């Protein structure tokens, strides 16, 4: 019952590309042609002004990129620590109020983050957490941990109890089971949850602005004034960096994971 005609599939792919890939392609053109104006359908002139800007401002760009990258990675780590044992409990144990509790812990990802972040802002100022990277990581983790939690619960459920029981029969203790059996099996779930958390943290503007207060450099913070400026070429070039960095990261992760699995003979 699938539409069998290949032309239909190709037409659909064209639609998909024009919806989701064309914007990125246009950004490349905008980045290379600062003088591209209405009504030209194709830029009259290309220039490397955007790239030159990158080179002259490289220190600022690199430092904001590195900062964004590090606090996003820290956020992933914090959410992982927050969710690992609770996810195991939620996936394996029954206890009263479990469904309600599960619904409750997922709410921070649903309600507008402003509603709790602005209330916390004052306390963070009093605790000198505002304007620090720690404050930024905390607020980002608070907003994004449900994605990690969901992924880990699913991971524990797919793993099942079999490996654990088997390892216990062979005489492994709790810590050995966790470190040598469960943790490696959970890596795909951690990566799935971690990627979402990383992207959420990496692309967030407002929470970083609120809690970082300009002291914590961020790539979104660097990008924002340029997006609103009239120089679209610069904004386009920087947006493309935004696109490339996570893609590169995910490819590397995927490749590294495959290699380590092969080494261990898991695939």
């Amino acid at each position, binding site marked *: *019952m699938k539409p069998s005609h290949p032309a239909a599939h190709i037409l659909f792919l064209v639609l998909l590309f024009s919806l989701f890939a064309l914007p990125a392609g246009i950004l490349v053109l905008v980045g290379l042609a600062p003088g591209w104006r209405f009504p030209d359908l194709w830029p009259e002139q290309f220039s490397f002004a955007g790239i030159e800007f990158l080179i002259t401002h490289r220190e600022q760009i690199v430092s904001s990129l590195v900062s964004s990258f590090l606090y996003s990675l820290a956020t992933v780590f914090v959410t992982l620590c927050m969710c690992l044992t609770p996810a195991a409990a939620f996936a394996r144990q029954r206890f009263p109020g479990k469904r309600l509790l599960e619904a409750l812990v997922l709410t921070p990802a649903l309600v507008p983050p402003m509603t709790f972040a*602005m209330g916390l802002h004052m306390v963070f100022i009093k605790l000198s957490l505002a304007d620090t990277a720690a404050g930024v990581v905390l607020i980002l983790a608070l907003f994004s941990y449900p994605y990690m939690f969901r992924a880990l619960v699913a991971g524990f459920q797919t793993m099942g109890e079999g490996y654990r029981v088997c390892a216990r029969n062979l005489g492994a203790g709790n810590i050995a089971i966790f470190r040598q059996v469960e943790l490696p099996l959970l890596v795909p779930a951690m990566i799935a949850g971690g990627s979402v958390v990383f*992207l959420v943290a990496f692309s967030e503007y407002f929470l970083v602005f609120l809690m970082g207060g300009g002291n914590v450099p961020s790539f979104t913070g660097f990008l924002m004034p340029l997006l609103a400026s009239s120089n679209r070429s610069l904004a386009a070039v920087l947006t493309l960096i935004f696109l490339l960095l996570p893609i590169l990261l995910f490819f590397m992760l995927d490749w590294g994971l495959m290699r380590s699995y092969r080494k261990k003979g898991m695939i």
Partner: protein
Amino acid sequence: MSWTSNRTAILILKLSPLMLPFVVLFCGGVFLTVCQSLGLFTPLPHTGGLVDAYTVILSDPSFFASAGFSFGVALASAAGSVTAATFLAYRVWQLPKMMAGAALVYKIPLILPHIAVAFVVLVFWSQSGILASLAHALGLIQSMQEFPNVLFSGWGVGMILAYTLKGTPFAMLLILALLVRFDVRQIQTAAMLGASRSRIFFSIVMPRLAPALHTSFIILFLYSFGAFDIPYILSESRPGMLSLHVFDLYFKHDLARRPEAMAILTLMFGFAVLFIIAYSKTVTRLENGVRKL
């Protein structure tokens, strides 16, 4: 210590890494927002009554205009994303294996931050944008001014476009996760029994996708309702999104108006919670009336 209480203690210990931040930071944060909306713990000592901020807000017609506007933008973009994502994901799933890899391009807007997606909408839809140039090249318009003023129409079309572009791949991701586990034989059987394509889609595929559709709708709706990033770039003057209103009150006015910002946030929080509860209740009730396969 008895065996059961020991078990409970271990369970509590296991849950605490999540529950402590949840209670202290999340619940605490919401609690402080509510307190400040009542004039308690504000940076400036609050002299008026407890509900002064609410009285000010609720007597301001522009608040209701903003709330209605935010609701509309959120509803349109979430409904648009979920509808588009359902059809696109279904078609992606039907692609032959060798073409399926190319379909991964749908993930591009997932990686782009919201502010960048807003920028893409700006580049495409402004009166001097790509689409205007295209319309000119096709002879549809003679000058920039003839291109419809999509971004500043007063209807939030720019924001809806940006949220839909960002939200569609997200919903597709959730829907495709369900589709990969979907049994093709159900569709083949239906086709053999003479069901039309649309009937197969609406009676067999859709009910299976329902959980992903509901989840993505709730997430996208509430996000667009309360987020700040996209409106900051694509907002029109009036009526504005609630989040921008809060931002202005919090950062641009003097501290005396802090309770008003917090009161709006409290109302937004209440609305979000009520929406989640009402939506899940409705879904459960509707699904109880549907026969499962």
